[in-house]
């Protein structure tokens, strides 16, 4: 029997389809299109010129300084560093918190306080970070002063070496909560009988974790990697409201660079090229996510 699309079906999906088409799908195409066209003037086709110019622009990619180990490395490298440090830290801390909190079901307030950072706006996180890394009133800076590491008893944002790290660590503070609740929901699906059997057989804590809990956490790890990579590569709010990429571009990232090029300097072609690169980077984790979803 050949089925036909019902009129009612159209009514149900049309608003969503139209909105997504005109304000998301079409704009993606338009952005790619304008990344191949010149910034000003009539907007003639320029091929890969915008991309080539970007890779020559030291505020986007500064290999010479990167090799010397001296900021600014440029937005691209900074975003990659962000992902490289942020992902394992928030994943590890989130797992640690989840493993502790699963044993303390009667104290849900503890979980709440760790998750709180995830609830507040990104621009506020940018303010919070000042309370951690400012020389006189920041907790982390003062902690390093207390244990005698005077080189870190400074305002982290005033120094090219530490500005990006301060932002990354604050973001870890936020994302640990997200990782924790994803892990917690997976840990609760482990049947109690498995854990009891392991205890009876005399398995150590580490053995129980490695052979019983970890296999249950595999899909959570995938979820977290995808979600946090997308966030790490497109981050904007927290940087805008704290360092604005400074000092001297030391904490500049792709999200901010794209905003500056497009909406401060009105170089739409360049901005679109950065956005396309960001999306291509974010497409890597999404590809694996789509593949595993389709397998089910």
């Amino acid at each position, binding site marked *: 029997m050949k089925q036909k699309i019902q009129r009612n079906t159209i009514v149900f999906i049309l608003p969503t389809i139209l909105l997504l088409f005109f*304000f998301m799908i079409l704009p993606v195409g338009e952005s790619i299109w304008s990344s191949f066209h010149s910034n000003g003037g009539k907007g003639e086709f320029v091929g890969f010129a915008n991309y080539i110019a970007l890779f020559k622009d030291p505020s986007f990619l500064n290999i010479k300084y990167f090799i010397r180990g001296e900021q600014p490395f440029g937005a691209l490298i900074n975003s990659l560093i962000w992902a490289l440090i942020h992902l394992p830290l928030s994943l590890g801390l989130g797992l640690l918190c989840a493993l502790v909190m699963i044993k303390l079901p009667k104290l849900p307030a503890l979980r709440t306080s760790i998750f709180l950072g995830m609830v*507040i706006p990104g621009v506020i996180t940018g303010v919070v970070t000042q309370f951690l890394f400012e020389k006189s009133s920041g907790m982390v800076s003062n902690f390093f002063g207390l244990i005698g590491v005077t080189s870190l008893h400074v305002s982290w944002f005033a120094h090219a070496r530490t500005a990006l790290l301060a932002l990354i660590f604050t973001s870890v503070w936020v994302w640990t909560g997200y990782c924790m609740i994803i892990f917690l929901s997976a840990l609760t699906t482990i049947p109690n009988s498995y854990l009891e059997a392991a205890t009876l057989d005399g398995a150590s804590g580490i053995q129980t974790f490695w052979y019983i809990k970890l296999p249950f956490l595999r899909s959570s790890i995938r979820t977290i990697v995808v979600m946090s990579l997308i966030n790490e590569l497109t981050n904007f709010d927290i940087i805008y409201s704290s360092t604005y990429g400074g000092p001297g571009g030391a904490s500049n990232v792709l999200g901010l660079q794209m905003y500056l090029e497009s909406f401060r300097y009105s170089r739409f072609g360049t901005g679109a090229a950065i956005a396309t690169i960001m999306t291509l980077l974010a497409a890597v984790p999404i590809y694996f996510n789509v593949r595993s979803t389709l397998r089910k």
Partner: protein
Amino acid sequence: MSKRYILRRKASRVFLTIGGVLLSILWLLPIIGVVMASLRPYQEIVDGWWRFDEVTISFANFSYVLFKTTIPMVRPLVNSFVSSIFGALIPACLGTMAAYAFIRHYLPGKTFITVLILCLMAIPGQMIAIPVFKRINAIGLLDTYAGVVLMNTVTSLPWILFFMMNVIKGQSIAIEEAARIDGASDYRIFFEIVVPQSLPALGSVGILQFVWSWNSFFWPLIIIYDMKKLMATQVIPMLRGQFYTNWGALSAAALLVMGIPIIVFLFFQNLFIQGSVGFTDDK
């Protein structure tokens, strides 16, 4: 052996509890810092809010940022509140309707739709910002709340679709089929069977989406520029001066802006967390 074993278990329990409490206090400290800085005068907190040699509590910072600065916060807070309600309700309704049709109705290319939705969930705002800015300008929604609500709606539809499709897929189809045999229309089935069954999930969508609309910064920054129309999140970076920052005022403003999402979260914790877990996890 058994006595020692019980003792050891008790000891590890105490150890775990202490560890958990310490972890959560550590994570709360930055927020406590903001609260302290907003309530106490600058001289007391300039060397660290954790010094309590002298403690004066005053709400001067709050009344300053709410009424007396160049951008009184009352208006932005109201702006954000109203547009976040619309930014939650509209996508929740549209997304649920579409999710129902995608799951239960006949449509060709359903796998393609699922893949497309998954991909759209990963599109960064920056990727669509420039064309969206031009289009919103063209239809006259630049510098309006409708423009912000529109973009909060569009960018949230993918995850709401994904989430609600999973929810509706999990519901029993038997009741719907029975109703259809009794001659109920698609609309009746949707409003009288699907929606009531999905209420907890819809609650999660509404709560999460309200908080995310409130927290959104990128779209307001691009769409709203009239100083009288600013959203709450937009005011925060403006309070930071280039050379001098009034930390007390900034903290008070920050507390006001994060207070709403925190209160909403504390009231609807379970819905919020179920939503946060469910929109990415496919079971």
